[in-house]
């Protein structure tokens, strides 16, 4: 039995006929919508390579059942630049060598965008590292990643902090 579902991905409404309820949001993006920027690393919620922003929150798309997100708004790495103009987080990753092989980078960047929106880390690099710990980098570019997140946060209006905890 096929089930029809709709997602708004990077601002574009997409309707997908799903003939298999097992499809994860990650597989839907990659296999059905050809958005292969979102990476499949561990596929078990341990590495963060599949991080996307759903309804404004970063989540692991490999542990999200696609059907459960019918109607949701999704932002993937393909949707963050404005044409040829890089997103400030993308630019900061380049400026600070926040990558080597680049496989984890889309997930890192989506996670960083989510972290900056969450506005919980202030200008504390320890909080940035903790907040980014769900994204593994086997090349160990962590130093550059932390610097990139701190700089991008500044570029996007400075370290805000909304709440106490």
């Amino acid at each position, binding site marked *: 039995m096929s*089930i029809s579902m709709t997602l708004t991905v990077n601002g574009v409404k997409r309707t997908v006929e799903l003939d*298999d*309820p*097992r499809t*994860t949001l990650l597989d839907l993006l990659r296999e059905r919508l050809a958005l292969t920027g979102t990476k499949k690393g561990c*596929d*078990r*919620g341990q590495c*963060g390579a599949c*991080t996307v922003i759903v309804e404004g*929150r*970063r*989540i*692991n798309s*490999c*542990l*999200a*059942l696609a*059907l*459960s997100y019918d109607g949701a708004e999704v932002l993937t790495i393909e949707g963050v630049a404005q044409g040829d103009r890089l997103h400030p987080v993308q630019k900061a990753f380049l400026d600070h060598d926040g990558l080597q092989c680049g496989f984890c980078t889309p997930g890192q960047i989506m*996670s960083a965008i*989510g*972290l900056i929106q*969450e506005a*919980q880390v202030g200008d*504390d690099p*320890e*909080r940035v*590292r*903790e*907040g*980014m*710990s*769900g*994204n593994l980098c086997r090349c160990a570019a962590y130093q550059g990643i932390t610097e990139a997140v701190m700089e991008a946060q500044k570029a996007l209006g400075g370290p805000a902090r*909304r*709440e*106490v*905890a």
Partner: protein
Amino acid sequence: MNTFEYVRPATVQEAVAAASKPGAAYLAAGTNLLDLMKGGVTRPNRLVDISRLPDLDGIEDLPDGGVQIGALVRNADLAHNQAFARRFPAVAEALLSGASAQLRNAATVGGNLLQRTRCAYFYDLASSCNKRDPGSGCGARGGDNRLHAVIGCSDSCIATHPSDFCVPLVALDAIVEVEGRAGRRRIPLETFHRLPGDTPERESVLEPGEMIVAVRLPPEAAHFAARARFLKVRERTSYAFAVVSAAAALRLENGMIVEARLALGGVALKPWRAREAELLLAGARADMPLFRRVAEAALAEAKPSGDNGFKIELARRIVVRALALALAGTPERVPALPGSLFASVPGEVIHA
């Protein structure tokens, strides 16, 4: 992953009816369930998607001064709720010490209570496991068991419950509100999870189809806000399950402890409330010798279930340190590394 029927009920009553059939499972965020299904560890034939049920995602103050947390409140939303974190700081600290930011953004309160053990033999289909396959034996007994339980084990299972969140909750007398075919009922969290006995496949007292709709904290739970901490030993600084953890909460008057709460994580197949140890604290003057006696009492019935005797001494020291941290006072803000041993602490407490 096996295939399954997907249903999305509109009400709690419909959900309970849909999930009462054998082989059905509730799906909330799915952060644990989908992982288990991908490994073939669980094979539900029907997923009842409750993630959009109305009115289960609120954090509400109750008229009696307690708080009711809807089952679908996301871990991150609860931990970052300013009013909640101020009243129940150890709960916020435990939540923020668990998983990753992405998982905390998705994972729900109800799902946290019902998450399955992380025992590697439970996950490995080539191993025997009485929890996954009743009667098949326990691979962890005689296997790699350095992280397994030291309290409440049985011959059939030595797994632990992995939750951090449940540890301060059980210390604070949390109540689980569930709805089933017979209506609503309330269960103290302390009796919600079952010790393994000879039926480790039965993990909670939930009846088939029963669904968690809320978790409540009684008004007394907020009396510890000034001195409540959660502390967790893990094998990396962040994003790791607890080897052992402790929640400690003290209420002081004129320098004397008038009431105390203490619970341990990572030691048993349920969040472990140390009630007898708490009694040693009530009415006593807080000092390190007292905390050491309390730690002895908290682990009095602990026994190695394999190559994990070290966890008993580790848990004692974590109890002492959690109590010392609680005595020092709840910090203004949850530390950068929540629940961490590496957070800077004044004085000698760090070596407890």
